[in-house]
């Protein structure tokens, strides 16, 4: 059965100074089809959807929507023709409630009471439990995403574009989302789904268009391919799964005992009685949906937040009341989630950024004076060893792509021969081959005798590299369990299940 084409693109081309983002891209989406757009970071996925959503004007090529020419000059024009988009990063105001946030995105918002009623109707129809009166600041990431989705659904779209929607969801929340998307598709709405989670695409999508370096390299039915085949189509080369270390584990190198801390931010999560122990050579994976205390845990471990002396021990020595540099001296290195602005200073060069956290362990400062020659050599070593693509170590950090900067940041920490490594979201927004390299580097560092803590929302990643597994939920850390033999459902339950699941069950009853 062939369904009528909803959107066709013919020869779309868009060049930016120095880079061709899309070159002669052609594809078609049928009505009611769930269409995957696959590709590494920088393959041109975002540029392509921005052209469809009217944010970017193509240099060449044409699109049609339901048979009529389609050339949106701005997003409101695209929305008027029935195209809606849920962005990867939410644009919500935490201090406003759900209905007010939805109203802000509308050209002619109805009265608040009426809008709240419509939000309730849509959320019931699509099994997306959401209370219009709640403050967005109090919502989980999954609930915030529902606000964005409902904002789109209120426009009754013909084509819904979703950019990496599941990166912030628990497995149960992903199930709810997929049910909603399938229900939408049955009603004839086409969905353009961007992701690099291949198993999801295999279970959800009818068709996949694969982009590499701005060109369409393949188009296939994802169910008929294995995840590895899809990944290799994206990357254009054969991928190796990371080799796990089976070395025996050593003494406990990092111990956290009953750590409780208030969050520095107004909408942050306090840590409540967190305890963990990691042995030399071991990788502890900490899962959890964003905003459950991951950032606070990293700050408490890196030394940016202080606690009681014995709440954090490195090689047995109490370090809870010491700052980042004292902990680095004791052997602990950390890589925060936010690459630009936290792990690295955007306008400083890679050399300067190498000094940022490498000064202590690499002895780059003598009597207060910086040894720039040694610092440059250290930065060049990171660039070489971790395959950071950059014209040189003199360029500003913000000029690097996300994946390359992440390789630099993780490489900077791992190059310091650390005894304890703490990373938060090591491969967030990083392309498949760079992610594989980063995971392998973490495994290698553990094999060399470091105790490694990986905080991540990517469950596949944790299952792939972690020896033991724990989950953060509402600032509490679950007891850890060996990763081997854990099922995804068990992990989901450890993470606290889906937020608002009870409401969902009520609606189905």
């Amino acid at each position, binding site marked *: 059965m062939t369904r009528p084409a909803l959107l066709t693109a013919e020869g779309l081309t868009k060049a930016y100074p120095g880079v061709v983002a899309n070159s002669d891209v052609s594809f078609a989406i049928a009505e009611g089809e769930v269409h995957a757009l696959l590709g590494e970071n920088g393959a041109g996925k975002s540029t392509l959807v921005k052209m469809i959503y009217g944010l970017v004007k193509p240099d060449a090529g044409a699109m049609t929507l339901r048979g009529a020419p389609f050339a949106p000059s701005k997003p409101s024009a695209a929305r008027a023709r029935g195209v809606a988009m849920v962005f990867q990063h939410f644009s919500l105001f935490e201090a406003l409630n759900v209905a007010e946030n939805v109203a802000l995105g509308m050209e002619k918002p109805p009265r608040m009471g009426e809008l709240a009623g419509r939000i309730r109707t849509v959320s019931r129809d699509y099994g997306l439990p959401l209370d219009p009166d709640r403050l967005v600041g109090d919502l989980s990431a999954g609930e915030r995403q529902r606000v964005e989705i409902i904002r789109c659904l209120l426009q009754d779209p013909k084509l819904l574009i979703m950019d990496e929607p599941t990166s912030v969801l628990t497995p149960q929340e992903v199930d709810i989302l997929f049910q909603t998307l399938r229900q939408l598709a049955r009603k004839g709405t086409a969905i353009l789904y961007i992701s690099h989670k291949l198993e999801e695409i295999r279970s959800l999508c009818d068709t996949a268009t694969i982009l590499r370096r701005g060109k369409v390299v393949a188009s296939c039915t994802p169910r008929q391919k294995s995840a590895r085949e899809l990944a290799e189509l994206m990357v254009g080369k054969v991928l190796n799964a990371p080799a796990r270390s089976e070395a025996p584990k050593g003494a406990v190198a990092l111990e956290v005992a009953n750590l409780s801390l208030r969050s520095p931010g107004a909408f942050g999560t306090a840590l409540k009685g967190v305890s963990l122990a990691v042995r030399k050579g071991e990788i502890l994976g900490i899962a959890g949906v964003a905003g459950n205390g991951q950032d606070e845990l990293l700050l408490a471990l890196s030394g940016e937040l202080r606690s009681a002396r014995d709440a954090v021990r490195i090689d047995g020595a109490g370090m809870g009341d010491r700052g980042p540099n004292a902990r680095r001296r004791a052997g602990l290195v950390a890589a925060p989630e936010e690459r630009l602005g936290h792990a690295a200073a955007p306008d400083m060069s890679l050399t*300067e950024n190498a000094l940022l956290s490498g000064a202590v362990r690499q002895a780059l400062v003598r009597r207060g004076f910086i040894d720039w020659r040694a610092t440059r050599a250290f930065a060049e070593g990171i660039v070489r060893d971790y395959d950071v693509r950059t014209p040189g170590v003199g360029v500003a950090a913000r*000029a690097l792509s996300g994946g390359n900067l992440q390789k630099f940041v993780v490489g900077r920490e791992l190059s310091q021969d650390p005894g304890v490594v703490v990373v938060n979201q090591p491969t967030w927004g990083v392309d498949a081959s760079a992610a594989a390299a980063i995971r392998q580097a973490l495994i290698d560092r553990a094999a060399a005798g470091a105790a490694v803590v990986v905080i991540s929302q990517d469950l596949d990643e944790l299952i792939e590299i972690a020896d033991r597994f724990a989950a953060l939920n509402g600032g509490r850390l679950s007891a850890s369990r060996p990763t081997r033999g854990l099922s995804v459902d068990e992990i989901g339950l450890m993470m606290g299940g889906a937020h608002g699941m009870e409401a969902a069950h009520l609606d189905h009853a």
Partner: protein
Amino acid sequence: MITLERRPGPSRFWTAVTPLLAVVLTMVAGGAMFAILGKDPVVAIRTIFWDPLFHPDFAAYSRPQLLVKAAPLILIAIGLSLGFRAGIWNIGAEGQYILGAICGAAVGLGFYPTEAWYVFPLMVLAGGLGGWLWAMIPALLRTRFNSSEILVSLLLVYVAQSILSSMALGALRNPEGGGFPGSRNFASYPSGANPELVAGTGLHWGVAAACIAVIAAFVLLQRHILGFQIRLAGEAPKAARFAGVAPDRLVVLCFGISGTLAGLAGLFEVAGPAGQISIDFGSGYGFTAIIVAFLGRLNPIGILLAGLLMALTYIGGELAQFMLGLPSAAIQAFQGMLLFFLLAVDLLSNYRPRFVGPRRPA
């Protein structure tokens, strides 16, 4: 229509060229203003920028004034620039300048009439210490109670001015001055004076201190970990905490350095060009230095040049008032234009303008 496009990185070329462009634009706009006021713009501009240095009749007097006026501006601006780079706003250098002068002068007058080599060095120490202490008030209030250092340091300027009047009329008044306000003049007390070191140049110890400060700040920012931490704290505060920079320590340190340098500037001024503590000793160097710091892009070499340029417009401005009868408001507007254009063209170092023709109807 003009649209602005963010550059991937700050342009080195434009960062260097924008101050010059601002000066040229100021000359054009200022010249237009002078023309409206009925003066020959070319003559007015020449009187401000050229005559103070090269006019056969006035240059002998005004050329040394260049260093005399530029030295305190540079010394204060160098201190301020460190804090400004780290996002720490000391707006009260004028008060620290006054307190430095009072403390240094008090020590000198205390020794009067003892003639000894150690009097002037002790005055220098006291001057720096006075500025440092006055700067510690906003710094500690900020670190202890998180009060705004901008407001506290600014308001302390007015307290300092009251202390200055009280000193000129009371404790430090010249007992042989016949009841007139003002202290003894250091010009008549060789051990406590800061004289012109080479006749006809304006060179005094404050000029030497300003040069040392420029070099020290340059080395600090380029080579020292503290300078790196200051830059890091200004550019990415979260990254600075990650790098182990304690924000409170930085506040105390930056206020300490800028207060000390402002205090030294005050001491060199009171012991040299001004000669005495008087009611109108505070002449606004502490505020003008803020402009100098930004005009020099918070860069030590830039501040050196900006301080000289600012001193030139002051001297030239006075000359223009005197020679051409330009109102002093016009001179102030001219100096204001300089800052205005500097901030306006500053945009070019981070943004690239693109000229887009009017959209044709499809």
